[in-house]
């Protein structure tokens, strides 16, 4: 079956085509969701939303990019949407954290309960700190850093997903790393 036939099957809402889609992409989509949202239950909910979105929007897929790229784009947007919603709720509850600048990595202010089964125990604290720091980055930097460093995607793949040039991706990655360095330095300074 060619990709076009497969896409046609998806557009015709063929159950076999969706079975195949899930076999091929459930793990990849879930892994990307886990990279953005380090909580297994939340990541599964988002992954499910991604497939529902694919189901509802496949008729709009014009084949300008690869199907996988399109699915990862939906995944990234769904994750950002989830984080944005949760952060808004948390921000409202922790208004005082905005005025206080002594603890930029306030761990109580994180959008979800950290529950990443892939994090080994000895790295738990460090991984949590890094996830909290990533959450402080602007969206564009957050996406690039997460997709590259946490999810392990190449610059070319990220460039296709976010529809920006590879040099833009490199520049965003550089700025993300610089900002994270600053955030983590401040955090460890305050810890001492």
């Amino acid at each position, binding site marked *: 079956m060619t990709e076009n036939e497969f896409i046609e099957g998806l557009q015709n809402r063929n*159950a076999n085509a969706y079975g195949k889609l899930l076999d091929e992409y459930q793990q990849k989509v879930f892994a990307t969701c886990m990279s953005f949202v380090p909580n297994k239950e939340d990541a599964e909910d988002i992954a499910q939303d991604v*497939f529902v979105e694919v189901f509802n929007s496949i008729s709009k897929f014009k084949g300008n990019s690869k199907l996988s790229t399109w699915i990862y784009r939906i995944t990234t947007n769904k994750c950002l949407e989830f984080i944005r919603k949760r952060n808004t709720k948390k921000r409202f509850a922790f208004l005082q954290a905005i005025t206080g600048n002594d603890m930029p990595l306030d761990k109580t202010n994180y959008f979800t309960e950290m529950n990443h089964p892939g*994090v080994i125990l000895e790295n738990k604290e460090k991984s949590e700190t*890094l996830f909290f720091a990533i959450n402080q980055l602007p969206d564009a930097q957050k996406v690039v850093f997460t997709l590259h460093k*946490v999810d392990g995607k190449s610059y070319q793949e990220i460039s296709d997903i976010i529809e920006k040039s590879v040099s833009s991706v490199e520049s965003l990655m550089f700025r993300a790393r610089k900002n994270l360095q600053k955030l983590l330095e401040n955090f460890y300074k305050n810890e001492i």
Partner: protein
Amino acid sequence: METKKNIQDKVDSTFNALDAMEPVNVSPFFKDKTMQVLFAEKDEKQSVWNWFTPKLQLAALVCIVVLNVVAFSKMETASSYDENLSEFAESYGLVASDNDSSILN
């Protein structure tokens, strides 16, 4: 100086924590659950009126409007036709009175 180096070591090891992260498998029933959600939504959408697409709705609306216009204009001509007919009947004395049509006479 020592503290600065210490902090940098901590930052580096924090960045390195990502490399040691193991992949997490999706739960075994994810596919079944998702298929159920997808095709439950599909059934819901395939309601009785699913075939009545916006294009058809517009066409139906146009048909109804045209039919109404035609019917209205026909009604107008029909009433003038009746008037003409009764006028014609009157002028030629073709109007039947109640007495004429009575069988008893």
